[in-house]
């Protein structure tokens, strides 16, 4: 897989240049590049055992279970969002840049999760950030978009500099950057480095004090980009954070407790702020913050209580949350496309159920799944998180888990107005029909959420590989 990333890096300028000549050629190149990435992924998943290290070149890669899970998610989501975008941004100025950046971002996320060297990890992290700035600012003629992008850029750039300082501290102490050999002993400097990593990557994954860029960026980006950012790009920062924290020896308990604390805070703050929103994309953006909290809580439980169930539920939720959020944002994007009104309020959804049954079904499935209603996929992963938390010995963890479960029920309070609005009386007729290219990804994601909800064991291969890698990362250091 990692050597094939060259395809993504090399074809991205080709897509840009051919797009200036013929858009159809540019679109075909985008699909071709994604197909090559899929083929490489198929080859690697066929005989995947543990960690696959590629160190022939100066750029080292280590492809393990976490990389496998996130690569699967990013390929699924970027293929679907690319197909969706072929209809969504057709004919807009800068369309060729959009596809080029989309492909580059896909490659950057795969590189980020499979980097085998601490400094390369930062370079891939910066590349994901840079491509996402340009994609968020796609509608560059609107003042709101520019303001949201500026906010995103300032906060993320500051975060990545903090990560850089953390890497410099680790480098000063150990003299190596190879993730396989790196073990930082427990010293005050290592604590400082770990804090810098949590603060730096925390900006990217929207930990509570530094989440403010997220709702603006998600609400102002093109819908397909919100889907991709929310679904996987933001979450890949979590994988990077876990990989880096596992290097700091003998302090795993502390980091686990920190993740649990931040996770609980994220769940509460995300939920309460989502209640106040009346713009559909902002509701989903704030619900992202609370879902990141669920992942952090699960993985924190895994580290703190040394429980594989915590890792497993966290990784499952990571994958399923990507599908749910992608579906939610794509369905909103299709409504925005037909009505041509960019800030879509909850009330604007009125009448969708009668006119567009597929979009309405997709919205209902996405909302109920996000809230964790059985038998949809979101229920499976949330249930496993709560099961992992309840079975620990610590009383505090059990209380926190019950608190998180109550919050999950509470989240229905902001999903129900959306579902309710779908069935209200229509107030504005659509201006254009939903093209087939938009219906297809929405239909596939809706079907996937229902099927995974009924047969969650379909994802076992991916999730168990990721769990084993996480256990290997943190197992030795407790």
């Amino acid at each position, binding site marked *: 897989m990692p050597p094939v990333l060259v395809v993504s890096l090399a074809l991205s300028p080709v897509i840009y240049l051919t797009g200036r000549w013929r858009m159809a050629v540019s679109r075909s190149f985008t699909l071709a590049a994604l197909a090559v990435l899929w083929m490489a992924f198929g080859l690697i998943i066929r005989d995947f055992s543990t960690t696959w290290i590629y160190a022939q070149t100066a750029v080292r890669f280590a492809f393990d279970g976490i990389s496998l899970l996130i690569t699967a998610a990013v390929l699924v989501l970027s293929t679907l969002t690319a197909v969706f975008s072929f209809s969504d941004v057709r004919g807009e100025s800068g369309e060729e840049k959009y596809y080029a950046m989309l492909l580059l971002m896909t490659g950057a996320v795969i590189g980020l999760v499979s980097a085998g060297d601490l400094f390369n990890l930062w370079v891939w992290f910066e590349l994901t950030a840079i491509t996402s*700035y340009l994609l968020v600012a796609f509608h*560059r003629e609107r003042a709101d978009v520019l303001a949201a992008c*500026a906010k995103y850029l*300032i906060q993320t750039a*500051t975060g990545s500099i903090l990560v*850089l*300082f953390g890497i410099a501290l680790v480098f*000063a*102490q150990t*003299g190596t950057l190879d993730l396989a050999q790196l073990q930082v002993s427990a010293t005050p400097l290592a604590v400082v480095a770990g804090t810098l990593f949590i603060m730096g990557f925390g900006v990217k994954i929207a930990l509570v004090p530094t989440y403010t860029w997220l709702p603006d960026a998600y609400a102002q980006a093109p819908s397909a980009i919100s889907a991709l950012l929310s679904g996987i790009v933001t979450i890949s920062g979590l994988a990077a954070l876990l990989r880096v924290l596992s290097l700091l020896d003998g302090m795993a308990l502390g980091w686990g407790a920190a993740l649990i604390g931040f996770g609980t805070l994220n769940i509460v703050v995300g939920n309460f702020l989502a209640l106040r929103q009346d713009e559909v994309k902002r509701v989903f953006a704030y619900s992202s913050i609370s879902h990141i909290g669920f992942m952090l809580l699960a993985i924190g439980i895994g580290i703190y209580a040394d429980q594989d169930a915590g890792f497993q539920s966290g990784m499952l939720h990571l994958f399923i949350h990507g599908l749910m959020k992608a579906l939610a944002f794509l369905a909103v994007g299709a409504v925005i496309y037909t009505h041509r009104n960019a800030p879509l309020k909850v009330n604007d959804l009125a009448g969708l159920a009668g006119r567009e049954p597929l979009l309405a079904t997709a919205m209902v499935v996405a909302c109920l799944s996000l809230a964790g209603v059985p038998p949809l996929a979101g229920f499976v992963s949330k249930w496993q998180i709560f099961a992992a938390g309840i079975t620990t010995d610590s009383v505090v963890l059990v209380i926190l888990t019950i608190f998180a479960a109550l919050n999950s029920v509470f989240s229905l309070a902001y999903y129900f107005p959306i579902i309710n609005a779908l069935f209200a009386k229509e107030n504005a007729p659509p201006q254009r029909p939903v093209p087939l290219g938009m219906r297809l990804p929405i239909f596939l994601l809706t079907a996937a959420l229902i099927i995974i909800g009924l047969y969650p064991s379909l994802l076992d291969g991916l999730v168990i590989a990721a769990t084993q890698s996480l256990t290997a990362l943190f197992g030795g250091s407790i």
Partner: protein
Amino acid sequence: MTTSHIVFAGAFILLAIGLYSLLIIRNLIKIVIAIQIMVKGAMLAFVAAGSLNGQSNLGQSLAVTVITADTIVAIIGLALAIRIQQSAGTLDIDKGINREG
């Protein structure tokens, strides 16, 4: 306490200056400059770290790589500044950016 240690501490002082500037400054171009100050601190930290553990070459080559990445960020930031100046008529992020949440 060698020279490298002093340089390493200096890098963190640059980080502090940049973070403080981010808190008090509202002009977008000045914010880009503040980010640049912090990145320069990080580069200094890499060079000092390289000389501390006897790997000056590696430390310096990492610093050069950082230059490439942070130049791109600075360019995007300045491009945004131009666009915001054109559309909002001001570079003050409090007027252009403030939204709830």
